[in-house]
């Protein structure tokens, strides 16, 4: 039997009614191992205007590089208090902010470890289906040889790497830019 996957439709402007129950901007409970990091940014449209009705979903491994999922075959510890899932709506200016722990490296398809990253889905009014992207971390040696980054033309890779904020340890900036010269790289996933 071959069925066809159901067609995606936009979340529309009223998604908070059904989705806010799972909103979660603090991904790691107190005591979860790893380097705490706060990531903030904006979702911007073609005019550079903040998108007030977007919602981000995050998926990441714990600091050991282990996903809390039955298909992660690695013999690494899962941690109570860390599911690895986050859901953050944008505010009226298109801003979002969340706190998590920096994920560990997870295996890639080329036999090498992937650089630490967070998988991101962004839904919004106006998008008939989600866009998929990734957040990478600055000053990470593994970025240079990372499997997914290497699929992206060099001039656009920077859109996937969060930026440090001078004088603000533990704070990173990362934007989702829908169109324009700085358009974020989105993956076909």
């Amino acid at each position, binding site marked *: 039997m071959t069925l066809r996957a159901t*067609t995606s439709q936009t979340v529309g*402007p009223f998604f908070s*009614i059904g989705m806010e129950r799972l909103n979660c901007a603090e991904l790691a409970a107190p005591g979860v191992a790893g380097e705490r990091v706060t990531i903030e940014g904006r979702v911007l449209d073609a005019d550079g205007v903040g998108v007030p009705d977007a919602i981000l979903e995050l998926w990441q491994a714990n600091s050991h590089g282990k996903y809390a999922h039955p298909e*992660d075959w690695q013999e690494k510890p899962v941690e109570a208090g860390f599911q*690895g899932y986050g859901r953050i709506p944008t505010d009226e200016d298109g801003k979002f902010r969340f706190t998590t722990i920096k994920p560990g490296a997870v295996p890639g398809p080329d036999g090498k470890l992937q650089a630490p990253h967070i998988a991101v889905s962004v839904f919004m009014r106006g998008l*008939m*289906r989600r866009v998929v992207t990734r957040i990478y971390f600055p000053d990470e040696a593994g970025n240079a040889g990372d499997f997914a980054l290497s699929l992206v033309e060099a001039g656009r890779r920077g859109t996937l790497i969060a930026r440090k904020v001078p004088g603000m340890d533990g704070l990173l900036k990362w934007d989702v830019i829908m*169109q324009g010269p700085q358009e*974020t790289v989105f993956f076909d996933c």
Partner: protein
Amino acid sequence: MSELLGYRRALAGTQPDYLHPRYKSSLKRAPAQPLVHLPHTLSEITGPVFAPETVNVKACDLTRQHSGEPLGERIIVSGRVMDEDGRPVRKTLLEVWQANAAGRYRHKVDQHQAPLDPNFSGHGYAMTDSEGRYRFITVRPGEYPWGNHHNAWRPAHVHFSVFGPAFATRLVTQMYFPGDPLLPFDPIYNCTADESARQRLISVFDWESTIPGHALGYKFDIILNGRDATPMEK
């Protein structure tokens, strides 16, 4: 050598493009650059797993979340979540949200001049059982006008959010009702090129799930991406 099974990609035309000039909100939000093809890795074949104990009866009966009964026609919406090979997607979370019977959402942005219903919030969630089945009791949502173009009206619909087993299977969609006269005019419903893919968004009237004397039944099966037949190197 160990191997990893990715998920299948959509058949051409069965998923909407991002840019649809008739759907005005897409113009400034649709990505302009082509997507970068990402072979699935461990990051995409895993995804959040939710605990079944958070689901309760009121969560999947939208008519019993307040002290009184909501206005409108009670309906049962049920179906199965399966993959493209017909295998049940077990213990996966579904979220739904919708307008009330008068076509009004309980949301501050919705300014449509139709009454709110104090007995209807318009949201619910459920987890599929071991056969991939789910079931909601709700009221039939009303059609409502929107600002996309002159005299634009949305057909009656229920929003569905489904996780499936992996990041790669995440789906948000809308369920429509059979025979809705607004469907041919709706830019959102018509965003998908493939006609049969569009029609699969329309629920089927279903005697079997009807509750005699109480509620009519509509069946809506949700299909998530199937598993690749050929493993990739891990």
